């Protein structure tokens, strides 16, 4: 048997890794290598070093250690029953690629995931070995994201958390029933148990000792998870309900939504669809409203009848259109909470409005300069020189924003 080249392995194992949406490299502990004894830095905000033509950023070297896998998850390109080519990196190869890519300023660090080979413990141990080599031998101070294996031994998770910036475990699908149907070897309880374990370890690492010393930080950039959208029949209401619970129960940093995307050599159990990208986008918008804009779950999901978000307009606008009695709001007087509900105003815009109105009366052109999306905000606000008149309550307001109706295609 001829040996596979590193390039060929890289092709196979990055192709296998692209269905993981996370690319974050932000929010970890601050560090650098100015002392000359190491390589890398982390300064809080992440850097996207390139963008692929799918519009996704490339921040980390996102690869699988191996795409051999003993599990048979229908949605996954690496399931045991798939005929995709298989490969396996050695520890040296992953370390060498990471360091050499990093030195050329291609990446912020490594996002390492893996198929399950032999046993969960053996797989996790190999991943931890790679992270340990990077941190200890190469003095690598860049970002490391490890995808943990839910049923790996607790000692391995403990070490992984000390070496990596972020740990993640994918819940895979929005409901337990769907996980059982499409990922028969995975157990939703076990996945949740692993997330709870990471949360407890992270919490425990906050406590100071009796001498006031801090223990080493555990996964300083937090933990995240991913759900595949559109593979099963779950509604947006179910999906957002699940993420709200995940954010609350496990203090997750992020829940990623990944539109179910065609994969090479798909399973007969799960017919391919064109990926629901717009739905994925709306879910992220709703997720943001829940986390940063003070919206409650039922406020967002109550605007639609079938439990799915409106694809034509964004969820904030959809909410505002259903609650016109609250509008227009006066930007010079309204409390911050209400300003955050105005379509077209983001968190930054609201902050600027509140700080500027302290020393001047806000006019419409001020708002333009502040940076609000005024076309969207117009019907919902009153400012110096601007009043929406009957626009707020006009019957055709929705039509101003929704894309024109499309003729159904025959194919």
């Amino acid at each position, binding site marked *: *048997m*001829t040996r*596979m080249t590193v*390039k060929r392995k890289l*092709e196979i194992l*990055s*192709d296998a*890794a*692209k*269905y993981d949406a996370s690319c974050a490299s932000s929010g970890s502990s601050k560090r*650098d*290598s*100015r002392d*000359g004894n*190491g390589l890398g*830095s982390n300064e809080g905000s992440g850097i*996207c070093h*390139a*963008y*692929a*033509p*799918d*519009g996704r*950023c*490339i921040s980390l*070297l*996102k690869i699988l250690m191996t795409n*051999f896998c*003993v*599990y048979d998850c229908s949605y996954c390109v690496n399931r*045991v029953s798939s*005929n995709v080519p*298989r490969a*396996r990196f050695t520890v040296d190869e992953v370390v060498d690629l990471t360091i*050499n*890519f990093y*030195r*050329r*300023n*291609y990446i912020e660090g490594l996002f390492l995931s893996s198929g399950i*080979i*032999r*046993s969960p413990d053996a797989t996790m141990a190999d991943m931890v070995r790679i992270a340990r080599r990077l941190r200890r031998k190469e003095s690598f101070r860049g970002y490391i994201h490890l995808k943990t294996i839910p049923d790996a031994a607790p000692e391995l998770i403990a070490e992984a958390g000390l070496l990596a910036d972020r740990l993640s475990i994918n819940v895979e699908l929005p409901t337990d029933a769907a996980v059982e149907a499409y990922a028969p*070897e995975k157990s939703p309880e076990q996945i949740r148990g692993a997330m709870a374990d990471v949360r407890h370890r992270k919490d425990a690492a906050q406590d100071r000792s009796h001498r006031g010393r801090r223990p080493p930080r555990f996964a300083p950039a937090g933990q995240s998870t991913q759900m595949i959208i559109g593979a099963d029949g779950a509604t947006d209401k179910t999906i957002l309900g699940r993420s709200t619970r995940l954010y609350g129960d496990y203090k997750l940093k992020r829940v990623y939504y990944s539109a179910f*995307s*065609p994969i*090479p*050599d*798909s399973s007969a159990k799960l017919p*391919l669809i064109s*990926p629901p*990208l717009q739905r994925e986008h709306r879910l992220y918008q709703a997720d943001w409203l829940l986390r940063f804009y003070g919206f409650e779950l039922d406020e967002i999901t109550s605007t639609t009848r079938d439990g799915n978000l409106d694809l034509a307009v964004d969820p904030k606008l959809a909410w505002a259109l259903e609650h016109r009695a609250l509008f227009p709001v006066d930007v010079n007087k309204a409390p911050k909470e209400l300003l955050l509900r105005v379509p077209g105003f983001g968190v930054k815009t609201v902050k600027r409005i509140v*700080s*500027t109105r*302290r*020393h*001047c009366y806000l006019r419409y052109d*001020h708002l333009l*300069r*502040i940076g609000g999306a005024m076309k969207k905000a117009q019907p919902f606000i009153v400012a110096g020189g601007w009043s929406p008149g009957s626009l707020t309550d006009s019957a055709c307001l929705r039509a101003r924003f929704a894309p024109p109706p499309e003729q159904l295609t025959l194919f």
Partner: protein
Amino acid sequence: MYHVVIPKIGAATAWRTAARGFLAAQVPPHEICWQEPGAAPELFARTQAPPPTGDIKVSRRFVAMANSVVWHRDRDRFARLYGFLWRLRDAPHLTGDHGDSRLARLRRMEKNVHRCQHKMKAFVRFREIGDPEAPRRSFAAWFEPTHHTVEPTASFFARRFGDMDWRIITPDKTAICVDGVVSFSAGQPRPDLPEDAHEDLWIAYFENIFNPARLKVSAMCSEMPKKYWKNLPEAVAIPNLVKTAPERAEKMARAAPTLPPLRAERMKERLAQGNATDGTLPSQSSALRQRK
């Protein structure tokens, strides 16, 4: 009329010193002509700025903004900054006023510079120019920033690449870091950097991390504008990826499900029996052999 030339290297300090002197001497903005080096000197101009005297209190927000705006490409940046600083004497609250049009302009310039710095941190691509086995490896990059961002961004690279020597060459300025010490010299034309074998691997990665079923070219271009492509090695792959994507996605959808490979049954059985722990590697290598 005063005539001040702000040098290319160290512009932030030079502008600040000059501005403090003018402010202390109560020189109004219309009496100062701020220039970049190389511009024709004005006749009958006094070239000496008054020396800064005493303490001048300026809000920290303005200083931070000025430290970015001085690197903007706009030729009037120094005058704009001084004009605003002059107004601040009587109205110190102006720095927080988001409704002021001249401040809005400066803020926009500041944002442009920040974005340019951010893109520089992202898009500089080093090539190895020394021995990979040397105790300190050395790398070089050619980059063409939109604004004069090499100087304010060099410290980022120094913090990041502490154990290697590097240089970033631009048409406008060159930053060189040797043994952790950063220095600046004049700009240079594009150098011939040696080929780097890792670029090939990086392009392979770029091609394979792309998902052809989610083609969104405009999203890519808004974050990675085409003006940067000529210095990004991976950009050579973009046209072909875009061209073949619809066909590849369609092919995936059309392909009939295949029969699982032979080893799938064996591995499933073994997993069910609960003895998955004793090396499945033999079956993996046999799978590899089948393909070769």
